[in-house]
């Protein structure tokens, strides 16, 4: 079988690219080797949160400045108009799956973290940011941060202490409460070893919501705002959120948790079902291991499960992520990109890969390492030749630090969207 486009990697970058290709009528496949970084994410879309360790309030102005100064940055290769177009596209595609993303217009907004710190971001889900949350946050009198007995991955008292330091909450009483879930039936699972998904499953049972809401209402006492770990269901989260708010008559707010990230899983689900709806082929649990390249053109790729059967396409997108996701591999004294053996940007000496402290203000060098590409996102091979029908997107790209700059998902969406656009143009032009 020959595809128009095969995308290797199903993170934000790969799925965005896949949706765009499929939507434009290309016969598209995505090969996913496992859970993407979305499962470990905040579930908000960070566009550009920090520049030189300072919080960015106006991300688009900051992008203008960035693209004017850092030639190699993926945002520079995309350009602001395309970034805006990509964000809008992403928002609309998610919305079609019932996942609503809210933004603050031209401004970043902030979401509360598990620790109670505030992080700048661009899009958030309704339970994390919306107009009502925004308007009421400012006049808040009392906030209650709750956790469910048995959930080890959230300490509301730590979050409360941290949050109350913020100037925004100077006149606000923030209290921490531990509540018991009435619905914890003994299903063999140790009731003190719950992870976010275990609790999300309890929320997903329709009969449970009213009881949970009543317990929350009781714990909230005279507070007008309830903050809880993000466990309000993976699938029917909109109904759960509405029901909880209407029955408690409170604003209920979700905080992204330690992995697995329910908020991230919602996005993952939305993107995957959108891709499927558009006729895309999703190949799960297989890993691309090598490629057949002649004269700077990829002829076929081969996977772990089918080492002898080539998979062929006119164009390919590589969006396999960084080291954590396996897109880049490091060894004792060396680094490489395992599928196409692409040219990397990195320091050869191992002791340059990291900084002296975990929380060093310059972050760590290896986070900026990755594949070198030209303006059109074509990568270079080891002989410095462009591979003509291969494009790169997302965290595998060099010259940006997703954590330090707070721009991981923004870069993934923009480069995924751009890579797909290049292919669409190319193939339409040919036909």
């Amino acid at each position, binding site marked *: 079988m020959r595809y128009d486009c095969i995308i290797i990697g199903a993170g934000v970058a790969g799925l965005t690219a896949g949706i765009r290709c499929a939507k434009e009528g290309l016969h598209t496949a995505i090969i996913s080797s496992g859970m993407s*970084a979305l499962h*470990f*994410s*905040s579930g908000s879309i960070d566009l550009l949160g920090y520049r030189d360790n300072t919080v960015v309030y106006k991300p688009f102005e900051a992008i203008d400045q960035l693209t004017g100064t850092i030639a190699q940055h993926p945002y520079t290769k995309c350009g602001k108009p395309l970034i805006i177009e990509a964000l809008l596209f992403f928002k609309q595609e998610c919305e079609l799956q019932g996942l609503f993303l809210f933004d603050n217009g031209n401004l970043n907004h902030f979401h509360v*973290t*598990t*620790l109670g*710190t*505030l*992080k700048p971001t661009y899009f958030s889900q309704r339970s994390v940011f919306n107009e009502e949350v925004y308007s009421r946050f400012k006049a808040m009198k009392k906030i209650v941060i709750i956790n469910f007995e*048995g959930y*080890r*991955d959230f*300490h509301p*008292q*730590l979050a*409360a*202490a*941290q949050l109350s*330091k*913020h100037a925004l909450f100077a006149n606000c009483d923030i209290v921490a409460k531990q509540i018991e879930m009435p619905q914890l039936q003994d299903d063999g699972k*140790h*009731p*003190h*070893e719950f992870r976010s998904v275990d609790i999300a499953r309890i929320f997903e049972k329709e009969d449970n919501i009213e009881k949970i809401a009543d317990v929350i209402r009781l714990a909230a006492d005279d507070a007008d705002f309830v903050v809880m770990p993000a466990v309000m269901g993976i699938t029917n989260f909109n109904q759960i959120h509405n029901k909880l708010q209407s029955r408690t008559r409170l604003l209920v707010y979700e905080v*992204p948790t*330690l*992995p697995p990230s329910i908020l991230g899983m919602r996005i993952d689900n939305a993107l995957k079902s959108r891709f499927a709806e558009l006729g895309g082929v999703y190949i799960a649990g297989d890993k691309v291991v090598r490629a057949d390249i002649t004269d700077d053109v990829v002829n076929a790729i081969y996977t772990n499960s089918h080492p002898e059967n080539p998979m062929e396409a006119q164009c390919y997108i590589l969006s396999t992520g*960084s*080291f*954590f996701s*396996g897109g880049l*591999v*490091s*060894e*004792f*004294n060396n680094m490489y990109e395992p599928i196409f053996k692409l040219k990397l940007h990195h320091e050869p000496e*191992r*002791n340059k*890969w*990291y900084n*002296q*402290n*975990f*929380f060093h*203000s310059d*972050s*760590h060098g*290896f*986070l900026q390492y990755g594949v070198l590409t030209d303006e059109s996102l074509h990568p270079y091979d080891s002989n410095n030749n462009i591979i003509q029908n291969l494009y790169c997107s997302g965290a595998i790209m060099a010259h940006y630090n*997703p*954590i330090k700059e707070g721009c*991981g998902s923004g870069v993934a969406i923009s480069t995924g969207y751009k890579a797909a656009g290049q292919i669409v143009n190319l193939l339409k032009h040919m036909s």
Partner: protein
Amino acid sequence: MKTLEAEVIVIGGGATGCGVLRDCTLRGIDAILIEKNDIASGTTGRNHGLLHSGARYAVRDLESATECIKENRILKKIAWHCIEPTGGLFITLPEDDPNYHNRLLEACKFAGIDAKEISVKKALSIEPNCNPNILSAVWVPDGTIDPFRLTSANILDSIERGSKVCTHTEVERIMLKQNQVIGVQCYDKTAGEYLEIYAPIIVNASGVWGQHICKTAGIELKMFPSKGSMVIIDYRINNVVVNRCRVPSDGDIIVPGDTVSLIGTTSRKIPYDTIDELVVDDDEIDVLLSDGEKLIPNVSRARVLRAYCGVRPLIAVSGEMDGRDISRGVVLIDHKERDNVQGLITIAGGKLMTYRLMAEMTTDLIAKKLGNSKRCLTHKIPLPGSEKRVGYTKKIKYFSGIPNSVVGSTHYRHGERVHNILSLKKRNYGLLCECEMVTLGEVEYAIKNLKVNDIVDLRRRTRIGMGPCQGELCAYRAAGLFTEFGDFTPDESTKLLRDFLEERFKGVKPVLWGDGLREFEFTYWIYQGLFGLGLVEDNNT
């Protein structure tokens, strides 16, 4: 200013100092211990955890070998819960001098070490991962010992019997009146206050830091620090200790310990002023991995978890600068004899294996000075946890309802004290650290009873954060419990989390490649990306 009084002040919470405290306590001497960081945080906690049979010393140093095997037998009785009597092998590689094998057997016989020659086939059946090309093998009664648990058990026993321990308290100077010591001035780092402790006898058991302690009393004591580095492999790739049968050198031993294996050790002279900022050099890692691979070829395929180093204190007895007087054995100095300073004793040198013997020698001298005629009992009275020897299966039966793995791990780490930790309440045995099977109950017990001041201390008592993920999820889970079970505000708990991650990173960065780099990227992603922990201090200002 706060003041305390005692008969004896012990400076240094390593194995030796804690041993002295316990010995004093058992003889009814009123003693107090001061440690500038945590117990076992210096040299004690930075060795390879080998329960020496003495075979490694037998050829070159018969006296040390004899001491080792004697203490080996005592420790197996009084501290069985800190020990795994795995046994050990000395293997001869094709490139090694084949005669060393016979010299070793001969020397072991002299030292009273029960070493025996075994066939290569037998050796490979005992240790299937061992290099199959070995020429010969010797079995010895080596084992493994956990220095953290051993030291902690000494402290626990002393506290339970009424002695006082001040950790995270640094001695600023020794106070003298004419030629007699009268006490120490110190700074309590946790409380942020100074205190004075008065006592007529001061024991300087601060290892390599003893040079500095002596200096505050106007005494010159010259240390020659030697750095030893080790790497930890993220699997228990061997079940018995594997030694290379040759004159001891770099990278010639692999010791299993709990869930991991450890390749030891290098030896490098370092300047005294660098002892507080030791780093493992890249070429040390190269040597350890390439030589470790010769003993157990699987080493090259396993993930390296971390690298760390300790500093051996070698001491110049007469205070002269040339190497002639440097002793490698135990050094007990009565500064009254040496420097005419009454009441000050320095105990240094030696090794973890002989900590009890060193403590006995020191306490004998203390007792003499105080006119105390009680005999040493530390070789007879078991440490807390080792009171009774009850088998693993019996414990599992006793705690039926709690998963076997949880009972097993808790019993393995705390011996009989498992009864002070586990209960059938579900919250008690819920896991916080899946890598090392550490429960909420164990964390609660440690915070309340084992002098735990931060998550780093907690790690030494429980192994939390010592597994493959190096504290990725459990560090946060544990941090909050300091507020629940300890005397910590939420902000302090958050700071503990940050400090812990910084501390873990020290051992991770020298080996940051492969899966280790992936794991670090994930951890960084969580704590900086998801939590913004690095921003916390900025928020405060």
